């Protein structure tokens, strides 16, 4: 067992370089900067205490994220607050027959694709963050870790402590939710294609 000072140095070397990443992750979890700062500090505190359990060959960033997520869940439980609830649920919703469902999906994705790419990117600003915030935390995190932070499905499954299949389904469902919201928004502004063609 290394001495305290050595262990501290090792911890700082291994973990402190991820302060920004962890803070951002905490922000996605908590939704505001003050709580994100608190959570980041709590996560580092817990991580240091559990540092002897950390395996150097594993990914320190994912390990820290997992600790932050668990700390956040613990805090939520202690406060007996309900997490943000949206209509998204893990269990599949009753679906139309596969052919209709597929066609509908195609249509929705196609309608989101606006021909003028510049318009597409300029059209959406804060709405993206707003609709993202509406997602249930586990869906939001899966999507953000994948699309914003560039995590692989395997890494996400380790951070969120769920099977790969769940990660897959959360990402696709979260995207579908966002797609529908953004489509409605674009439609209101008169930019989205209205018809199936």
């Amino acid at each position, binding site marked *: 067992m290394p001495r305290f000072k050595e262990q501290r140095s090792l911890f700082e070397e291994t973990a*402190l370089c991820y*302060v920004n990443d962890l803070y951002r992750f905490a922000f996605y979890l908590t939704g505001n900067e003050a709580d994100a*700062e608190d959570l980041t500090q709590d996560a580092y505190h817990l991580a240091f205490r559990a540092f002897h359990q950390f395996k150097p060959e594993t990914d320190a960033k994912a390990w820290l994220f997992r600790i932050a997520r668990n700390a956040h869940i613990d805090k939520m439980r202690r406060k007996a607050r309900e997490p943000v609830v949206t209509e998204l649920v893990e269990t599949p919703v009753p679906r139309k027959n596969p052919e209709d469902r597929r066609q509908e999906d195609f249509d929705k994705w196609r309608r989101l694709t606006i021909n003028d790419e510049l318009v597409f990117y300029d059209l959406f600003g804060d709405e993206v963050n707003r609709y993202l915030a509406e997602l249930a935390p586990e869906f939001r995190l899966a999507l953000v870790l994948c*699309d914003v932070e560039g995590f*692989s*499905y395997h890494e996400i499954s380790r951070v969120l402590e769920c099977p790969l299949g769940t990660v897959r389904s959360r990402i696709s469902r979260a995207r579908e939710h966002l797609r529908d919201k953004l489509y409605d928004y674009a439609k209101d502004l008169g930019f989205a294609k209205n018809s199936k063609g």
Partner: protein
Amino acid sequence: MNCNDVLPKLHELVDGELDSRTAKRVRDHLTACRSCKQAQVGISSLKCLLREKVERPKASALLSTVISQQIRRQPGPLSARGLRLTAAAALLVVGIAAVLALFLSGEPRLGHAEVAAACVEAFYDIFRTPEESTAEVTAWNENLRKEIYQVAGITLDQVPSVPNARYVRWERQTLKNVKGVRLDFKPVPRDTEAKHSRLDESLISVFLLPLKNMRFEEQFLRELEEGHACTRCIQLKTGAIYCFRSRNFFISAVTNLGEEVLLTDHLPR
């Protein structure tokens, strides 16, 4: 591969999660199927949009420093913590025993070391029982304030029932001019030496220990305003230690009843 097989795999394709063989089969299908291709473009566009538009806040420059300092202050990881906890517990027992001994002996005056020890004890006490009742908190708060006001010549009708940030600033300004009273809102190092030196030169030393955040003053005032603060008081034979804890800060106001202390008559005995 038909459309029904391809559609569920498009997300994985866009995310680079398909093995090369499956990815090739999906791509082959996409070259031949306009609908699937459009769906894939839609998913890619959304992914790009998220990468570009999702807020990516940056941690403040101080956060890393604060965390680093906190880690240095922390005891070692659990495996080595036992020894340290035992040592800390022993120190605490000695501190409490010192305070109790003073109670029982009727010693009229506390030395700096004893006050500091009691302060440390109070600190741990608060951390052991973080849940305080609002009424209790308010009562202790009020008592401390009333005593200080008497000395400072502040009349109670100037005091709002719930202290807000503006009032706190005014109060601090007023108290600055009162001889013998010093409210120090600067953070002090946690080592005992520093506490001793403060006690030497202050009649009332208010220790504000930032527990979490370096932007202590602003945040503390905000927390006062929000009513998150709570206090506790330890009555001693020759004075009292008032402790104050908000969400992120701990304050101990230590009364030190030395010979030159002007507040003696106004503080609880």
